[in-house]
């Protein structure tokens, strides 16, 4: 019917709808749409097309996970509430429809787990991609779409001008709307391509009108001072090779604190399990940074805050461990051979009850003055370090960030090679657990200073390290999970919550975990050699030698 020929938007200076106004010769228009119509008027008759398909008001809420899984997969999920009913619509980044389904009775106001969406093709398409994260309302816009016919001297419609005037609905204590730049589309009428091109040309020549380069979602977020995919649990600290070491370390730690604080609310609201996961990763990284780099911070900051972050890390462990069990439950149940999945149900219920109890303890601690004091004072202290490093106050013996990165990373790599190299088939499991910790420290150091390295070389080194870590992780996690299941079985027995069939099924799971651990152990030699063998050592050497090189 009418393929879109070209999309334009009005100048978005100031971010308001009216901001697109520019002087158009004599036609200084207070309404930018009026100026557009004036520019088209010499070439076309223009009339409003009332009741045109697609016209009217459209209220849309974008949904995505906190870590933008849909956006990163090139998808946009919107909930629309229109006269003909509410629906969920999944599109590709360029607007190509992917799936659509009615959403009667469902509201996007609260976070929802993907499996809790109404059944339909949209849910089917995203459940795998988004899980275990919840879908959160990102932003809500209201768009009034009006269609104007562009006619030839016979009064025949030869093109259409579609005007999308959108505003952003801001909730909170003071609900208000914020106008977004109007978007214009010239739609071609079949058989009249030249006229549509002409209209598009006239628009393109108009000052204050530019081709659309962003999605409406990006536009709406921009008005809020945000951008799509603006959360990542990566370190991504803005450091440079020449930066004084304390400043670089404080910058990394501040970035980790940002991530910790970004996740705090999601943890306390128990939106999904991954808020706690990301918060724990930030805490672990912080502890590693304090341990491995804290000596460059002034005073006794490292000594003072190290134990506090250890407290925070320990606080979160029981809930996360239970989350891991519950998240892995479907897979565990699926792989049972002797027992049936139903046998595990009392175990699942027991885990869920324990998780509720542990979560209450965690939430209480995270709402405590101790937690608030920790984050507030830590931020204050780090900001002081970062901002007090001006030339006048800089200490004479401060080394640059690149030197710190190289010495500490080389030392950490040395520990990995020597301890890993000493592991034999007869070595105790503890030696592999210890190596896993050293690998984690090395990985964190690499991540903290990632901006200083050549990205290709960095990717290769981290890729190999990751494979080694996965292997060591499988080895240790299988053992820990087995021990935990054993302890949980004891507790269930003590609470008389363990039918025999459940205990047998749990036994089958522990047997599978033991097999997995053995496989990881058998795989260790190959993984270690790939990362820390002569070639791996050469790669790390080259990476570090070129640290900070332009």
């Amino acid at each position, binding site marked *: *019917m*009418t393929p879109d020929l070209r999309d334009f938007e009005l100048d978005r200076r100031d971010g308001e709808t009216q901001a697109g106004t520019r002087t158009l010769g004599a036609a200084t228009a207070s309404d930018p749409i009026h100026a557009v119509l004036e520019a088209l008027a010499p070439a076309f008759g223009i009339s409003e097309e009332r009741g*045109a*398909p697609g016209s009217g008001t459209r209220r849309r809420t974008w949904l995505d996970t906190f870590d933008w899984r849909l956006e990163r997969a090139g998808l946009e999920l919107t909930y629309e509430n229109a006269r003909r009913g509410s629906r969920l619509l999944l599109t590709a980044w360029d607007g190509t429809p992917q799936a659509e389904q009615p959403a009667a009775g469902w509201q996007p106001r609260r976070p929802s787990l993907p499996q809790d969406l109404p059944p339909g093709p949209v849910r089917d398409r995203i459940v795998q991609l988004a899980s275990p994260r919840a879908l959160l309302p990102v932003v809500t816009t209201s768009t009034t779409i009006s269609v104007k*016919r562009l006619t030839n001297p*016979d*009064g*025949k*419609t030869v093109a259409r001008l579609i005007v999308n005037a959108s505003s952003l609905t801001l909730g909170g204590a003071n609900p208000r709307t914020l106008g977004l730049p109007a978007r214009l589309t010239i739609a071609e*009428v*079949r*058989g*009249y391509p030249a006229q549509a091109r002409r209209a598009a040309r006239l628009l393109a020549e108009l000052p204050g009108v530019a081709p659309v380069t962003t999605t409406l979602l990006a536009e709406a977020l921009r008005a809020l001072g945000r951008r799509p995919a603006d959360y990542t649990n990566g370190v991504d600290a803005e450091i440079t090779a020449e930066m004084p070491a304390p400043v670089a370390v404080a910058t990394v730690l501040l970035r980790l604190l940002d991530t910790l604080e970004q996740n705090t609310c999601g943890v306390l609201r128990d939106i999904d399990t991954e808020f706690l996961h990301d918060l724990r990763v930030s805490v672990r990284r912080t502890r590693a940074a304090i341990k491995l780099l804290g000596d460059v911070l002034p005073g006794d900051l490292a000594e003072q805050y190290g134990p506090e972050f250890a407290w925070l890390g320990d606080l979160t462990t029981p809930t996360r461990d239970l989350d891991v069990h519950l998240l892995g439950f479907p897979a565990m149940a699926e792989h049972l051979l002797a027992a049936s999945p139903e046998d595990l149900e009392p175990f699942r219920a027991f885990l869920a009850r324990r998780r509720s109890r542990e979560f209450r303890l965690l939430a209480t601690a995270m709402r405590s003055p101790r937690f608030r004091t920790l984050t507030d004072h830590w931020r204050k202290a780090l900001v002081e370090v970062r901002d007090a490093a001006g030339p006048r106050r800089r200490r004479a013996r401060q080394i640059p960030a690149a030197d710190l990165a190289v010495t500490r990373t080389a030392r950490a790599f040395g520990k990995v090679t020597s301890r890993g190299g000493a592991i034999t088939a007869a070595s105790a499991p503890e030696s592999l657990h210890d190596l896993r910790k050293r690998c984690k420290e090395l990985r964190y150091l690499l991540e903290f200073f990632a901006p200083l390295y050549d990205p290709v070389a960095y990717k290769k080194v981290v890729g190999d390290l990751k494979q080694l870590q996965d292997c060591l992780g499988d080895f240790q996690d299988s053992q820990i999970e087995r021990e935990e299941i054993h302890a949980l079985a004891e507790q269930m027995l003590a609470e008389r919550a363990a039918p025999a069939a459940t205990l047998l099924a749990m036994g089958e799971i522990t047997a599978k975990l033991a097999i997995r651990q053995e496989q990881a152990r058998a795989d260790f030699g190959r993984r270690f050699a790939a990362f820390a063998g002569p070639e791996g050592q050469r790669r790390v050497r080259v990476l570090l030698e070129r640290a900070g090189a332009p």
Partner: protein
Amino acid sequence: MKIYATYNIKGGVGKTTAAVNLAYLSAAEGHRTLLWDLDPQGAASFLFRIKPRVKGGGKALIRGTKVLDDAIKGTDFDGLDLLPADFTYRNMDLLLADAKPTRRIAQLLKPLAAEYDRVFLDCPPGISLLSENVIHAADVLLVPLIPTTLSLRTLDQLTEFVADFNGRRPEVRAFFSMVDRRKKLHREIIQDLLAERSMVAPTGIPALSIIERMSVERAPVSAFAPRTQAARAYRALWAELSAPQPAQERPAV
């Protein structure tokens, strides 16, 4: 893709106004609809404000040097496209005689099946090679009848003409057009024919000046005057015609 053709041996019976309004109603229901103005006079094209001109003329279309697809124009109405008339269509019989004489229109429409749900053919009057082509291509022949004795004769002629066809034959659905209920003859003929022939739709299109006004407004009456008696009549008629014909009414194959 279902193909309807408004056709009558007689001229001036309301074929084009029916084709324009029924195609519009089909599109308004959400069916992707194409109207092919096969009449060299180009009345349907005029009513949609589209120039009755096809690049290369009928010759290019029939010979296939110009694909039908390229000649199609969007009307002002969502889901409704038009293949305009061309003055060269007056020589259509000669052009068809050079091609596969009686199946060419059906052949040309075939590639459009993916793009349209319904096609309306607005045919010029008369019995010709073009009308044979149309009868071969159409699933339903929509026959407007003015309630006069002569019109009935032409319906009989047309029914016989279709019955003589070999192979697949279209369903024939007639309806009264330009009905003047003040005339006794009109009322009597309608009453008799409805009793005799169930191929005739109960709803007739009245003779109203608002329908003549289509040539001033250059739009279907259902679009510019949707609440009028004429628009209501077209809607009722379309509801009857687009409903499946009872099995016994289909001509034997």
